[in-house]
Each structure stands twice: as C-alpha cells, then as structure tokens.
C-alpha cells in the first residue's frame, strides 16, 4: 500500500475518532462519579445542531463551540437533577434524554436556518486545518497528526489531562472514591451530590463539544441524524476503556480507523453496498468490545465503578 493512502487513512481515523473521544472522556468522568448517563447520543446531536446553528448565524465557529458546550451541559444538568436530587432511575432518565435530544435536534434543524428555514444544506463556517509549525514537517506522521483542526489538538491535550487529573490529583481521588463508595466518601467529608452534579455537567459539556466537532469540522453542516449512533458507541467505549481515559484512545482510533477504511473503499468504487460498509465501524466496535470485555473479566476484576447507577442517600438504613 502506498504511503499517501496510509497517511490519508490515518488522518481520517483521527478526525473520525475525535468527536467520539470527547464524548467518551465526558462519559467516563460522569460514570466515574457513579452516574450513568445514557443520554450521550441526545446531548451529542443537540451539541451538533446548536453548534452549527450558532456558527451559521454568528459566523464564528467559537460561538458554535461555546453554544454546544452550554447545550450539552444544560441537558446533563437535567439528568443530574432527576437522578441526583430526585433519585430517579438513571437508565430511564438517560434514555429519555436521548429520545428528547434526538427529537429536538431534528426539530431545530428544520427551523434554525435563515428565516426559519431548515438548516439542512446550508453552508456555514468550519474549523480549518492548521498545520503546526515544525511538528507537521515530521515525515509520515506529521501530516496525519499535526495537520488537523483545533478541536483535534484540543483532544490531544484533553486525554492526558483527564488521565492525570483522575489518577494523580486530589480532585481525581475524590472522583474515584465517589463512584466506588459514596458512603465512604461522604463520611470522609467529600461532597457526594456536589461532585456528582459537577462531573455529570462537565461530562455533558464534553459530549456537546464532541457534537460540535461533527458539525463544524468532521462533516461540516447539518443533516438529519448527524451523529448516527456515535453517542452509543461512546458509551460502549467507556466499558471498553474500563473507565480509563488513556485506553479510550485505543477504542476511538479503532472505530475511526474502520470508518476511514470504509470511506476509502466507498471512494474506490467497490461493489459492496454502501449501507453494509457504513455498518462496519459499528459492528466492528461491538465485536471487539465483547471480546475485550470477556477477556478482561477472566483476567481480573472488571473496572466498573462499584456505585455506578446507584442513587446515594445519607440516612439510608442499610
């Protein structure tokens, strides 16, 4: 295979994996605090439509990003209120959020265009690729890694930062403790509901940002069902990553990689039906996920936070 093709596949792999990785890191933080938010798909698609709409009307991609973060965070806040304050069932609340988000995004996509027209087909501002000086001159890898948009570079920073905070700092210690054993954390003076709110909302913001990357950089513009299930893949990747931000990279690249190859095959005019190729990244992710999780379960303790999905009440008689 020639080098140019490999570089192009790697480039697309990273671009396709970026939005997924934002969402996965966001959900990892949320789940580490003990809150399961199945609303990722809804928050992500709302992030995508609001980012594009805001960027379209203001002409600024940054306004789009800011809007997506606020929208994602706000939707997560609803989930936080329902599950932390009202102790509603986390699965039901998350699913409701996804259904709500998907429906609302579709509706907004019909109305937020110029003069109340649909957004579909509109061309708005987008994140352009920026070549990083020196780094992009590295042969082979430089082009793929360092000739990308700003949000990709943001992801390069986010992953090690999330990992560092989680394992090497006091806030990270508290986050891990709250998800594992909220009673203990509470007895040790950690504000359990406060941290759960914080990380649920922060997770929602990152998911929203992932949505923004889709509509402002990866496939600029708005189409129906733009996320096409990426939110669900993100939730699967959280398990695949065993709630570890560093391992999420592998999962996101895997999904992105199959996506890139599938694109290439379609571009090369293969006879395999497009719908089948479109399905491949998802099928592949699920299969790998199943295999890895099986293997992990045999090898050692599976790393789900022990209190994931369990509401916390202080004066509960156990």
């Amino acid at each position, binding site marked *: 295979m020639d080098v140019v093709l490999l570089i192009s596949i790697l480039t697309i792999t990273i671009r396709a994996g970026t939005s997924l990785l934002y969402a996965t890191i966001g959900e990892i933080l949320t789940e580490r605090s003990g809150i399961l938010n199945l609303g990722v798909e809804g928050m992500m698609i709302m992030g995508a439509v609001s980012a594009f709409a805001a960027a379209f009307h203001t002409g600024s991609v940054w306004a789009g990003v800011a809007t997506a973060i606020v929208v994602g965070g706000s939707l997560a806040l609803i989930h936080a209120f329902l599950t932390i304050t009202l102790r509603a069932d986390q699965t039901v609340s998350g699913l409701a959020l996804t259904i709500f988000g998907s429906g609302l995004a579709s509706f907004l996509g019909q109305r937020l265009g110029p003069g109340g027209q649909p957004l579909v087909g509109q061309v708005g501002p987008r994140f352009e690729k920026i070549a990083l000086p020196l780094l992009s001159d590295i042969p082979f890898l430089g082009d793929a890694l360092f000739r990308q948009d700003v949000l990709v570079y943001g992801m390069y920073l986010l992953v090690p930062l999330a990992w560092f905070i989680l394992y090497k*700092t*006091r*806030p990270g*210690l508290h986050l*891990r403790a709250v998800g594992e*054993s909220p009673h203990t*954390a509470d007895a040790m*003076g950690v504000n359990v509901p406060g941290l759960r709110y914080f990380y649920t909302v922060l997770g929602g913001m990152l998911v929203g940002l992932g949505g923004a990357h889709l509509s402002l950089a990866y496939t600029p513009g708005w189409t129906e069902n733009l996320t096409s299930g990426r939110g669900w893949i993100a939730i699967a990747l959280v398990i695949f990553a065993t709630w570890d931000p560093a391992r999420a990279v592998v999962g996101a690249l895997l999904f992105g990689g199959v996506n890139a190859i599938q694109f290439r095959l379609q571009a090369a005019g293969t006879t395999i039906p497009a719908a089948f190729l479109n399905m491949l990244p998802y099928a592949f992710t699920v299969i790998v996920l199943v295999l890895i999780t099986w293997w992990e379960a045999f090898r050692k303790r599976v790393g789900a936070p*022990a209190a994931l999905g369990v509401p916390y009440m202080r004066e509960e008689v156990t």
Partner: protein
Amino acid sequence: MDRSDRPPAVEMRGIVKRFPGVLANDHIHFAVHAGEIHALLGENGAGKSTLMNILSGLYRPDAGEIWICPRGQTQPRRVDIRSPRDAINLGIGMVHQHFMLVPTLTVAENVILGLKDPRFLLRMRHVEEKIKQLSRQYHLQVDPSAYIWQLSVGEQQRVEIIKLLYRGAEVLILDEPTAVLTPQEAEELGRTLRRMAEEGKAIIFITHKLDEVIVFSDRVTVLRAGRNIATLDTARTDKAELARLMVGREVLFRVEKPAGVVCTNGEPPVLEVIQVEALNDRGLPALQGVSLEVCSGEIVGIAGVAGNGQRELAEVVTGLRPVTRGRVLVRGQDLTNQPPLRFIEAGVSHIPGDRLGMGLAGNLPVSDNLVMKAYRREPIANGPFLSRRAVLSFAQKLIQAFQIVTPTASVPVRTLSGGNLQKTILAREITASRDFASDHRRVLVAIHPTRGLDVGATEAVHRTLLEQRAQGAAILLISEDLEELLALADRIAVMYEGCIMGVVDATSANIEQLGLMMAGETHMTKETADRL
C-alpha cells in the same frame, strides 16, 4: 488518672433522635474523658450506633447539645456538628462497623481521602512516610501502598484507625470493633486502644459483648431502648450486673443442654460432605476439600472468621452452589449438584444468614412466606390452584406453634421484628423438613441464626435448635459467635481459607484454642486430631 478536675473531652446532653416509628435516642446524656476507654453497651436497637453517628456527624440530632473541650483547654464549648467533616475538624472520628474504605484505592489514598492536604497533586511518598510513622508509634502494622481489597479484615480495621490518627483525632469511636476479628486480633486491638488512651486520647467503643467491656474499658455506659440506664466504673461492676442493666432483667448465661447421642447406634450420618471443592462468586476456590459428617441428634458447629468458606459450605449442602469436586450425601442419597428442590425433598432445611434477602420475601404476607415450602402439596395445592383457606389455616397453625408475634397473617413479613422474622423462617423450615423426611433423620442448616437478635429472641432460637436436636435432627450450625457454638454444639469444626482446620469436641474446647485455629494455626489440627 484524675479526671475530676478537667471537663470531659466530649459531653452529649439530652440527645434526642427519632426515626420513623422509633425513638432511637431519648434524652441521652453521655460524657467521655481524655485518657479513658469508655464502653457503650447495649442490645441491638438500644441506640448506641445512632448516638455515635450523631457525634460523628452522620446524623443530626432532633434535640440536644454537644460540648467539647479540646486538649490543653479548660473551658468546654458548645459545638454544632453538621457533617463528618465538622466532626473530624473537631478531632472526633469514627471507625464504622462496615468499614468506610474504598476497595480499589490504596491504603495511603484512603487515608488522605477528603483531606485538604495535599491540595492538588498527590505526592504519595510524603503521605506514606507519615503513615509508617503512625503505624510504628501505635504498633498498627500496615503497608501504605497496598490496595484495600488485598487486605484482611483486621488490616482494614487498622487502616481505619490510622485514618483517624492521621487526621489528628482526639476522640476515637469504634463501632463493634471486634465483631470481625479473631480473639487474638481482638486482644491486639485492645492493646492498641490502651496505647492510644495512654497518649491522652478518648476512646469510645460500642459493643454488646460483656466480656469486652470487662477486659477493655475503664468506664461503661449502658443504653437500653434509647435511654442511658447507667454509667459505671468497670472495676466496680461485673458481667451479671451489666447484663441485667442491658436487658432489664436477670439473664442466664448457660443454655441447659442435655447430653447428645452421637452416632451411637451405628447409623450412618444423616449429612455427609466428602472432599468437597467449590468456587466462590468471584470464581476463586472457596472450599478446598472439605469433609464433614453430621449425625442424627447432633449439632455440628462451624466456627471461623467471616469469608473463610462458611457461606459456600452452607450453599453446597443446600444445593444452592455447584460442587466442582467431591460429593454431598443426605440420608445416604447422593445429591451432589442436584437442584435445591431435591435437597428440600430429602429433608434438608435452611435457615439462611440473610433473613430478608434469602430467607423471606419481604413484601409478601407472613402467610405466603410460611407456605413457601408447602404449597406444592395438598391441602394447600389444589391442582394448579392454591387454596387460600388452607394457606391461612396452615399459617395460623405455625404462628401459634412457634409463637410468632404478628398482628395478622396477612401483613408484609418485613414489618416484623428480627426475632419474629427468624421464628417465621424456623417455623417454615422445620415444618417442611418434618413433612418431607418421614422419620427423625432430617437436616437443618442454620447460618448465624441469632445474629442481630435480642436476648429474648436468641433464647427462643437456641431452645428451638436444641428441641430439634432432641428429636433427632442433624444440625449444621454456622456462627461467628464462639460462645454460642460452645453452648449449643456437640462438635465444632473450624474453617480457615476453605479448609477445615480441625474438629474439636465442644465440651473440651476453649475460646483460645478455637481462636488459634480460626487464625490458621495448622499445628493445632494435628494435636486436636491426635486427641480425637
């Protein structure tokens, strides 16, 4: 130590705490001085833990005041403890009965959890150094970089104590600290407590065990039904007086047990466990070649620290857990890896340790719980239907025979008290095994049958077990209460890490010997084996 000239380190005045339907603390006055070990004695539900949860900030009192006098000061001041963090800032810390440790974090990480220092970066070396220094000072051996899930229960308790010392606690509260320890570990804990008291700390320990009060404490406060009954100097009281204060009437310490008839007539054992191996829930070996026989008219006790395979053994002999090797025989029938129903039909009854989880369906009425092993047969089964009338009359009969206190047979069983829950299970199980096993040769497997029960209910359960023994049942009694085993059992088998360390005759056994075997002292088995 002269404590009269200094105000108490902590004084709780007129504490009231209500839970729905219960007055847990009724104007309790309680004071503890620096340098003393103060026992807080009472039966389950007397309000001990509630009182201490208030002091440690987990609960808020409905009324009452807390005054503290920190070391080096002479004037006490009133404090408002709104959270565990407030309590620890005031130098008050508690070791809970269920440890407050995060299993996936290291010892050092658990110790600094919730602290303001380190502020951001976790510089663990510094923390570990400080932990090592504390463990030297108080002889609390523990590895700061180990993960909690790797530690034994005794080690975890030491981590809990270090956690409090690290935070500079001057008042340490321990909730039933010896419940999970071997007698030797308990002794070691006693020495640690004494060392801390000598350093001027105030130690409060919650217990319902009279022996511990006598051995460990300087003073004792007795609670009963949410009220402070008395505060005494331990040196000027004795077990009998404490028991009377705790229960409110005279208590007999010995259960009258007639001599047993142990496999004398050459009958084969009713329950035989032969070289059984089984896995626990995590897929690790839990039973590693256990062999055991229980004869008609005999109680065989199983002693051991929790988590050494007792639960798995009980599940194996009731058909709830598959056996990977070995055989289980009931009345001579090989029932290895047969479904639970076969065990039930062979006359095996099961008093599980988790009453509401495994023993009863909490939301179903008392009557339905009582017929759970009888509904398949006439007269309760009427073809595919249940005869409601037969269910009720069956339930009424059992309620009377076993003196279950319940308003009616149709209230949800979870509303009954612990003692009546246990009576409900006993009634169902004993009746069922009587129905299925036509002769006297039936099996009763009882796990912690008196855990959490008050003295009256405990007596009733003990009486029932001894009655069953007299009628010829073969009883396997699993308990963490060595006194109970010594009082009831004919023979005691000690389990350690999935093996039986030895079987001793209950009449000649003593607590020290059992304690050593529970801690895995293998040479004891040889000696005892030689003697048997």
